[in-house]
């Protein structure tokens, strides 16, 4: 997408929202984030386990030719009964990512 594609933009990822970190009432564990995947709200979440996901954000300076930066991660396991998942990222997500978009890809695929 960032490559300046002329052709059609295809979406091969599912949208997700970062809800926050894994936490109890007064302790939070930032190494695991909770993500709500769009359209999934029951135990069907198992299909997404292992899929890779990315959090994309913009920065002011250009690194490697682009201002966009990303943090890669994976869907680790379901969280609860309502379709939320736990995700682990290469580096912990920053707190300003809460409420923002994450892309959940369909690979590594098993279909």
């Amino acid at each position: 997408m960032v490559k300046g594609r002329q052709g059609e933009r295809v979406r091969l990822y599912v949208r997700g929202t970062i809800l926050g970190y894994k936490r109890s009432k007064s302790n939070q564990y930032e190494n695991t984030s909770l993500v709500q995947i769009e359209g999934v709200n029951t135990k069907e979440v198992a299909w997404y386990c292992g899929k890779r996901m990315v959090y994309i954000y913009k920065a002011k300076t250009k690194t490697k030719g682009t201002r966009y930066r990303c943090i890669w991660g994976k869907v680790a396991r379901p969280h609860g009964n309502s379709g939320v998942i736990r995700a682990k990222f290469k580096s912990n997500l920053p707190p300003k990512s809460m409420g923002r978009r994450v892309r959940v890809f369909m690979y590594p695929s098993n279909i």
Partner: protein
Amino acid sequence: MIRSVSYAILLGWPFEGSTVLRISLPLLALAMAPTKKERTASRNPSLVRGIGKFSRSKMYHKRGIWAIKAKHGGSFPRHEPKPASAPPPAVKPPKFYPADDVKTPIPNRRKPKPTKLRASITPGTVLILLAGRFMGKRVVFLKQLPSGLLLVTGPFMINGVPLRRVNQAYVIATSTKVDLSGVNVDKFDDKYFTKEKKKTTKKGEGEFFETDKEETKALPQEKKDDQKAVDSQLIKAIEAVEDLKVYLGARFSLRSGMKPHELKF
């Protein structure tokens, strides 16, 4: 009672139980009418690991060495000793011994197998590429290469995807199949796709400041011919099916409300 039975067996089949002359047993077995199975279990059951039930003298008796000796006039039958060959030529001790004993690592004989192909992927299946330059494109699967990667083609005339390798994990297999009879993909393997090694020319002082991006990577004509050869047969098969050409030309995309975990590909 058991002992008497074993004696009878021993006297009847003279070589049974002798380990030295076991080679002749099959020949003798052919000579004697009922073929006897070679004993597979030890005659000395173990009580505890390392301790047998019978003592050495009892085992001597059980193995029937006494009977074999009796049959051969008092001594156990032996082969003639091999004629002593000439001693091997004397090797001079090496002049140089390395200071430390270096352990040589054991060579790795493991040959990895190609990745197990998913049952849904068979030659001729239409696949959807999930990542990379051609993401979303629908391509035809040709075969699995020895490295485990999948060999895939657009065909090039239809959607611009050339003969390419793709990893199984980045692919969704659809249930659409294309007839691959008439397409010969035997000549393609991983070596066909490796990058050619750039000759590292030693840079002289003057050349150091020149940029050496002069080599344009034009695709060699034979690769274009290979593409055409594979695609010509494929396109005929594709045009035979209604709408398949348009289907392969279009890209896959998720739309609003589409849930991949519910989609049937």
